[in-house]
């Protein structure tokens, strides 16, 4: 099995950063690799924002950007993995809304925070199993399955609460997403630390574990992957469960962010999670990319929004510029060779 996996994983290896050492390139191309562009883009963009709007370098400016990127970055974990296996997860906004409403309403009913986390963990497994099983066994496209799951979740929230989604948000959650929040005595909001820990975990799982290699193998070639003893059903269940868990964490953090709850609170995260993943350079067809790139994509997304707001660009024009910048970035480093061309 290990040998088979190695064969399948060779596809993923070929698709990650290592293939940037293609010897054919010369001159500036040797230095301006697409992967390098992905990771330098947020830095360059941040410098541009700083030159135009120096106040971004203030403590509150930096922490505001970090907190916003953290909430988005955590929600993107599931979207990245779903896209890596050649799928997509449209149930993320609904799952964010589910966690958001449950943490507020259950706290109002005197549930302890650990009990709420257990409930959310259980529900995440249910969501992951439903998404994974339906998109595997019935050969349904994940887009349809996750859209349906999301609709069921939102409908379930509204049916259960009769639209009365308000409640109480524990104060430590409010602190976790406040730019002036502290953790372990340090002036760093807990949401940023949570993102850091999760990012390290996801990157390790992606690159150093069997399930990580299975994810890339399944995305690179869904037909060949089962021949390499990759179980598509189990892999998809794991991916969509992780996606639901990450969406729940974002939903809980957003409860502190807005001081209230709403079933629709996750809606902006449908577009922004996909944007961050695509801008990061993870291929929508699967098998190529990774969460490291998505981290860069999340920073780019937040920085572009901040720049446009800072330049007092109107709301409608913000959408136009955001689209143009995304196209420009993807055109710059989204022209990597396909898997077939690399092997």
């Amino acid at each position: 099995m290990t040998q088979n996996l190695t064969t399948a994983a060779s596809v993923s290896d070929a698709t990650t950063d290592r293939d940037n050492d293609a010897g054919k390139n010369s001159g500036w191309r040797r230095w301006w690799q697409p992967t390098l562009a992905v990771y330098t883009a947020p830095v360059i963009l941040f410098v541009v924002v700083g030159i135009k709007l120096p106040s971004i370098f203030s403590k509150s400016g930096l922490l505001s950007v970090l907190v916003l990127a953290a909430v988005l970055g955590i929600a993107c974990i599931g979207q990245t993995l779903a896209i890596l296996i050649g799928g997509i997860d449209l149930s993320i906004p609904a799952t964010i809304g589910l966690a958001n409403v449950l943490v507020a309403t259950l706290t109002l009913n005197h549930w302890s925070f650990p009990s709420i986390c257990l409930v959310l963990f259980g529900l995440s497994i249910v969501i992951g199993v439903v998404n994974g099983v339906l998109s595997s066994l019935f050969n349904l496209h994940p887009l349809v399955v996750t859209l349906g799951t999301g609709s069921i979740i939102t409908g379930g929230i509204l049916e259960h609460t009769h639209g009365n989604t308000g409640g109480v948000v524990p104060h430590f959650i409010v602190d976790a997403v406040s730019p002036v929040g502290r953790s372990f005595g340090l002036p760093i909001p807990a949401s940023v630390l949570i993102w850091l820990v999760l990012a390290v975990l996801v990157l390790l799982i992606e690159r150093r574990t069997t399930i990580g290699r299975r994810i890339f193998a399944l995305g690179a070639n869904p037909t060949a992957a089962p021949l390499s003893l990759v179980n598509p059903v189990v892999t998809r269940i794991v991916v969509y469960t992780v996606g639901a868990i990450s969406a729940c964490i974002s939903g809980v953090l957003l409860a502190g962010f807005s001081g209230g709850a709403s079933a629709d609170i996750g809606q902006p995260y449908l577009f922004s999670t996909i944007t961050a993943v695509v801008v990061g350079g993870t291929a929508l067809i699967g098998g190529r990319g990774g969460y490291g790139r998505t981290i860069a994509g999340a920073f780019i997304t937040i920085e572009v929004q901040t720049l446009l707001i800072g330049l007092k660009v109107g709301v409608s024009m913000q959408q136009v510029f955001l689209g143009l910048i995304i196209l420009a970035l993807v055109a710059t480093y989204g022209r990597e060779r396909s898997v077939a061309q690399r092997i």
Partner: protein
Amino acid sequence: MHNKRRMQLSLVSVIVAIAFGVAACSSSGTGGGSSSGDYTALSPGQAKPNAAQAAALQKYIPAALQKSADGYWNWMRLGPNPYADWTPPKAPWQFCYSSAYQGNSWRVEGLDVAKNLWNQLKTQNLVKGSLIVADANNSATQQATQVNNMVQQGCQVIFAMQPSSTGLCQAYSHAHAKGVLVISMETGTACTDDIQMDFAEYAAGATSAQWLVDQLHGTGNVVMCDGIPGVAASDTRQAAAEKVFKDNPGIKISSITSQWTASTGKSQMLQFLATHPEKVDGVWDGGTCAVPAYQALQQAGRPIPFITGFEGGCYWLAAVKESGKPSIGFPQSGGQVTYMAFQVALHMLAGQKMKGNMVLYPLPTIDQSNFDQYYKPSYTINSTCNAEPAGGEPVSADFFSQLFSGGNTPAKLTSPLLSLNSN
């Protein structure tokens, strides 16, 4: 030869399709009413009324209520009462409630109050059956179908809660033709077969903006936190505030948008503050943004400026109390909307007539002078309730006598609005 014939057939098909399309667009665009030309045009963002809009205001709105109708052209078409020749059915009536969406506590409160009001009428044997309720889940097509179904089910009055501005005109036209009274609540529409009812959105936006200008003595940096671009009510409030600020050149405005979602409002405000080191002297709220803006300013370590409110939520009252900074807002609950719609329906069912197709009612103001009448110590920044008018009624006693004439005395609701919500 065959190709030529096929091309001719294709051409005819295209022409027929275009003809159907034009007919359909023409029908929906004009509201399906035969006299749609009598109604003024929608003019979003227009600062002053054109001649036709000014004339319609004089013709169809009583002089005492014209102040509340200021800016109506931003989101409503004004014209003659489509139910001028309507013969109201005799009691007991079948009431129906079609909501575009029921997914938030504001909408839930609206429906809860509607059920309560219906029960009050039931005890007087004025309504029959049960209150038929439908939720369209934000789909105009679905809501149009539901309205059509309600007509078939024998509904005599249909309350449409925040329907889409367009897309339901054919359904309203069908209902109107069947003698069913349709009242669109909390929005204007492009249709001409319904009674359009809303609070004075434009006047409220202008009032809060003027309050801010007065607090700042006409000078300062103001952040406008707009609602959802493209939504008539949001654009109307924004247009009203912009006009006030432009009339005061000492006010420098910047804009963010909350999308009427607290978390988005806070994100946008944090990003604004991160990139704007200059002092923020005031924040104008176009809806759902006062508290997120307050939290963002607080967490960014900025001094708390004057922040206007809008919908008078209990969470806003708690934030005003906490900050100690004066503010302005309006008691504008979902329950208030349905209460006003029931009152309009009862007047029309009593045979009373109004000249126009539009009811725009003024909102009471919550400010420093009456803050304690609205605030309760139990309110927190997480409270989801809404303040109700301190006097118990959303409008003064003579509002309906100014709006309606003729007919009989309408049926009375036994409990005032204030007693229907237990905040």
